[in-house]
């Protein structure tokens, strides 16, 4: 907490003396898109690991943050448009498109509660699972790969319907064991560099790790357009990237392990607003 406060103070100091404030994050910046404010800060759950929750948006530079203030400037919206095209496109043996059964607006409220238990399937479901079930079982079409552009574009389109709603995943009942498993993965040190997610995103958020400003590693902004690779990035692809950086063999995208981690990480952000599709560096 002390570290965080001093970062804010530093940020303000840099601004007032007109230095290269662009490199500084801001804990007070407001995310207002089209006149609607999206809250980027929330109180953590009582007894939870974080007292204050902060969106990754606050940890980015002025320039990167600015790209999210207007959907016309937000490069992720090119992919939202692709998602819309795909939504209306007939594919597979049944001659159907997503729009044969749904309107995009039907999905308002879905993003905040995923991943969740799917009773009929007897397993935890991420948005990618629902999308692929519709493709294979209702459209007679092929599955999409977890993090390929068609999937991330569709996830972005559907997530956008819930922008501004608070994340609210369930962690009890049938997912209680999965939640515990995700928690264990979060705190387990892995790789040659021997680090856990918590080392960077719980113990050191607000601090620089070389040129990167560490955030809380929240997933409320996913899928995320990254300036680094100029495409939408899925939650599981980000987990994979972080594991590779510490020289650990990542779990598979869509694996039980990454779904458990997704549930646990989502729960750490319960209360933060859905911000998809966000922009990061």
């Amino acid at each position, binding site marked *: 907490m002390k570290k965080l406060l001093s970062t804010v103070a530093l940020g303000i100091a840099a601004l007032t003396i007109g230095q290269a404030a662009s490199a500084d994050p801001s804990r007070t910046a407001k995310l207002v898109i089209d006149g609607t404010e999206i809250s980027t800060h929330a109180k953590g759950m009582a007894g939870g690991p974080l007292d204050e929750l902060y969106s990754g948006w606050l940890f980015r530079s002025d320039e990167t943050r600015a790209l999210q203030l207007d959907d016309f400037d937000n490069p992720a919206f090119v992919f939202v448009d692709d998602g819309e095209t795909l939504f209306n496109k007939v594919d597979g043996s049944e001659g159907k498109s997503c729009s044969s059964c749904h309107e995009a607006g039907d999905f308002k409220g879905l993003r905040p509660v995923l991943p969740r238990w799917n009773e009929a399937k007897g397993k935890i479901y991420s948005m990618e699972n629902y999308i692929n079930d519709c493709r294979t079982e209702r459209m007679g079409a092929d599955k999409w790969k977890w993090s390929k552009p068609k999937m991330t574009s569709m996830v972005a389109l559907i997530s956008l319907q819930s922008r501004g709603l608070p994340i609210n995943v369930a962690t009890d009942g049938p997912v209680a064991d999965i939640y515990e498993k995700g928690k264990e993965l979060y705190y387990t040190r892995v790789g040659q*560099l021997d*680090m856990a997610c918590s080392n960077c995103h719980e113990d050191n958020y607000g601090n620089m790790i070389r040129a990167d400003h560490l955030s809380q590693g929240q997933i409320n902004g996913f899928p995320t357009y990254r300036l680094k690779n100029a495409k939408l990035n899925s939650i599981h692809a980000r987990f994979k990237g972080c594991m590779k950086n510490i*020289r650990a063999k990542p779990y598979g995208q869509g694996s039980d392990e990454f779904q458990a981690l997704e549930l646990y990480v989502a729960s750490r952000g319960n209360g933060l607003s859905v911000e998809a599709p966000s922009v990061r560096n």
Partner: protein
Amino acid sequence: MRSLAIASIGAAIFATSAFATEVAPDSVTFGEGGTVATSLTGVAGDPASGRKLFANRKLGNCLACHVNSELSEQQFHGEIGPSLDGVASRYDEAKLRGILVNSKMSFEDTMMPSFYRLKNGARTMKKFDGKTILTAQQLEDVLAYLKTLK
């Protein structure tokens, strides 16, 4: 011709003897407080090489976590660990070597990687499995550089 041949034989002998005295990662002896008193290689460290290793993102990458004013030409210094300015005045050689070999012997549960240890986290990528982050000589080079930070 002949002198070249002699020189290369000399280098070969030197290389094998250096190898013979190198302490394997599993055989490092720790003293009081996680110190390592003897050189891992018996060959003096090269501070100029150590300085490069300190900044190199694929090797030491110490700058990822530590501020070091002596490397002010490098743009980004991390804020995870303490500043290493004047670190050689705070710790002696044996303590510094110990911190580098296995940081956990000096600082319980620290996030700092152990640079000359085989048993790290689970699921280490194949490419790095069974390997130390730095070689014994690279570690001695970094150490020689740290000793200049008075």
